């Protein structure tokens, strides 16, 4: 790869805390290498801000290898920036050219209130999992792992759904801030496996109820969630969630 350096203009959302109204600030950044990651570019800017006696930009990040799901920047109108199947931390600066202007915002959704600058509170996702995103098996209950063969195709589909990193890009991209892809992925992961079968009805109903309670919007099958999902979680999982939910409603005996 040919390396190059670039000068950029950044417009970044600054918000002191949840109560603050927030605003954009413009920062020039110079001599950014095309080999840097997007967050390393923000690191450079932050070092510069600290040296100038200003407050650095607060942002969530941890593993920086695209798996922890912590990073969450809305870059030029798209969660995690321009690359397909990618997280902000894995976006590299060769995606940009000298002179570009880049607008960086936090996830925007009522259910994800801003904590500071680009950080948001995604604890709603944890509460949705608490509502049923698990298999009730205490430690020590298990039978031998090979006692239940599982069709490879189903196991593969369950894995593909379980690859969700819980970053919330799907919500940020959705015009209704719906969390259906997140919920659909978890319901699918567990419904596709025989171990998840005993609780499949209550799981679908309770997780959807919690999702509504948290203030996420409704799904209109636009597919923006799938388009921006860093792990390529398929919108088929939403269809499966709808089927699970409907079956649970039709056959509910409680």
């Amino acid at each position, binding site marked *: 790869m040919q390396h190059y350096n670039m000068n950029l203009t950044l417009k970044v959302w600054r918000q002191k805390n949840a109560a603050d109204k927030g605003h954009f600030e413009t920062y020039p950044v110079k001599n950014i290498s095309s080999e840097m990651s997007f967050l390393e570019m923000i690191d450079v800017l932050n070092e510069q801000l600290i040296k100038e006696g200003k407050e650095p930009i607060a942002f969530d990040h941890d593993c920086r290898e695209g798996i922890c799901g912590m990073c969450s920047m809305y870059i030029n109108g798209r969660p995690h920036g321009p690359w397909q199947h990618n997280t902000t931390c894995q976006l590299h600066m060769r995606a940009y050219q000298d002179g570009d202007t880049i607008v960086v915002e936090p996830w925007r959704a009522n259910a994800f209130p801003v904590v500071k600058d680009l950080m948001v509170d995604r604890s709603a996702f*944890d509460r949705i999992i608490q509502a049923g995103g698990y298999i009730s098996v205490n430690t020590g209950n298990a039978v031998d792992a090979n006692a239940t063969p599982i069709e490879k195709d189903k196991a593969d589909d369950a894995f593909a759904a379980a690859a969700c990193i819980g970053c919330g890009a799907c919500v940020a991209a959705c015009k209704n801030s719906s969390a259906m892809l997140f919920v659909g992925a978890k319901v699918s992961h567990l419904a596709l496996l025989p171990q998840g079968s005993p609780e499949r009805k209550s799981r679908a109903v309770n997780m959807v109820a919690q999702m509504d309670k948290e203030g996420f919007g409704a799904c209109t099958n636009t597919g923006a969630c799938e388009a921006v999902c860093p792990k390529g979680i398929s919108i088929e999982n939403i269809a499966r969630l709808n089927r699970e939910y409907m079956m649970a409603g039709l056959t509910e005996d409680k």
Partner: protein
Amino acid sequence: MLDSKIPAGPLDQKWTDYKGHCKLVNPANKRKLEVIVVGTGLAGASAAASLGELGYQVKAFCFQDSPRRAHSIAAQGGINAAKNYQNDGDSVFRLFYDTIKGGDYRAREANVHRLAEVSVNIIDQCVAQGVPFAREYGGLLNNRSFGGTQVKRTFYAAGQTGQQLLIGAYQALERQVALGKVKMYTRHEMLDVVVIDGKARGIICRNLITGELERHFGHAVLLCTGGYGNVFYLSTNAMGSNVTAAWKAHKKGAYFANPCFTQIHPTCIPVSGDHQSKLTLMSESLRNDGRIWVPAKLGDKRAANDIPEEERDYFLERRYPAFGNLVPRDVASRAAKERCDAGYGVGTTGQAVYLDFKFNLINKYGKAEANKLGIQNPDTATLIRLGKEVVKEEYGNLFDMYEKITGENPYEVPMRIYPAVHYTMGGLWVDYELMTSVKGLYALGEANFSDHGANRLGASALMQGLADGYFVIPYTIGNYLADEIATKPIPTEHPAFAEAEQKVADRINTLLSIKGNQTVESFHKRLGRIMWEQCGMARSEQGLKKAIEDIRQLKKEFWSDVRIPGQVNEMNPELDKAGRVADFIELGELMCLDALDRKESCGGHFREESQTEEGEALRDDQQYAYVAAWGYQSDSQWQLNKEPLLFDVAKPSQRSYK
């Protein structure tokens, strides 16, 4: 003085006997006992969930915004278990033996045997939770192999095994949160342990959103806070991974064991420039199918694909024919360094070697697929096309990650890799029950020192984290808490809590009042450089002595010239980072001291003064078959306690992978 509390009796009966005789706490009393769990990775989440299921009142803490984000999530390749599903000769004994040998005879036999025993239960538990491990077409579980072993015992979920295991443990944890048995505190960082009458009774932590300090009581405290690889600044650890919780415990009396035992992982994406904030691992599982080589001719600048087969030096296969590319990590890392130091390295910096998939893509996978499809005499292009499909399924996410970072397509050109800091075998000293030298204070997972000796084998970290959390602590903590059932919760107004909180507040205020000129990040980078150069893949007396001087100097400079923006009573990531870097600086000094004390080479600890004629690590069992457990006395002052290592079953010998 150091009592490791290893049960008597034959090695393979110790754990069974222990479980049969340890004290129990009845369900009614469990409800009255409170346990604090710090960290929610594999060890912490599995411990918190299991203890909640048992009926204890658990409080769990993590600094991330959700327990699901702990760095266990990034583990790629797999988890070992002695299931012997492949009928290839595996057994609990072999897993035990491989782990002891892989650790270069510096781990405790009894702990390692227990680990091998419970490994089989872990896989059962995870499958029951819905962890989608890779399967064969018959619907049964698949395995791959890892370094330092000759059997296939590694269970995996593509290159995302850690993620899947952690999500399993996280879901079990959230289930207990929903049931009210675990109370979860996210974006909280532990900043001290409260010790009352010689027993750990709680913690002081900072609410990272509001900046407030909080006091929490517990009848026992579990530290599941991971490793300290970030002392090197550049490592494969997450940005937030830190030693602070373990270090605070150390300063409150917990011994720190074998701090210099760090694992340098052979296959990571090389450093590309000064801006680099972290290094990315390419899973060891890739060595199943990737062959490592450098050009055989010095100064060969041709592109990798232009260098013909006979002009390549597959140096691991050449030096270690029995294990080939699957030698343990320390051996593979040193061999790569040796070639690069000799001038054979590739890439712009010359600090890289090739990891090449073409051979197995064609010969292993391509041919097998062609055979399945009944294609006679397939050409190379067909074989590559067919092979790619299989490789994609096995390692797809890793290949994608490599391409995103480097801009090169590893299906077409070999990966460039170089060793990087990955894991720390050292950690808080614990006895057989996982209790530190402070009563009621436990350390689980990577945070303790116990199972991996001087070098950890691949796919064993996940195994240990989950073993400690699911299957060890639920038994051993009862043996302690059974004597605590009469202890009423201590109000956090107790002077010990007040004093601990005051000290934490004073330190934070001191840090903020320095208002110097240099950023926290710049100090961390300088510390990392000292550690990598003098306490990295090769260490010498002279270098270590210099490093200690340099670190002391750096510490002075830090405490007089660091600049931390922002206020105390708000979300302030720079302040959080400053506290962690200050602790790393102190730890760095102890690591160098420990490396200086251990004049032998063993596993990942390579003292240049102690090597065989062929350049392999040369142990000195006469003098150094001990665990170095350092007790903190005062600033830069430590006392060395030695726990002798006795090998009744796995007799030490010179490790050979030839």
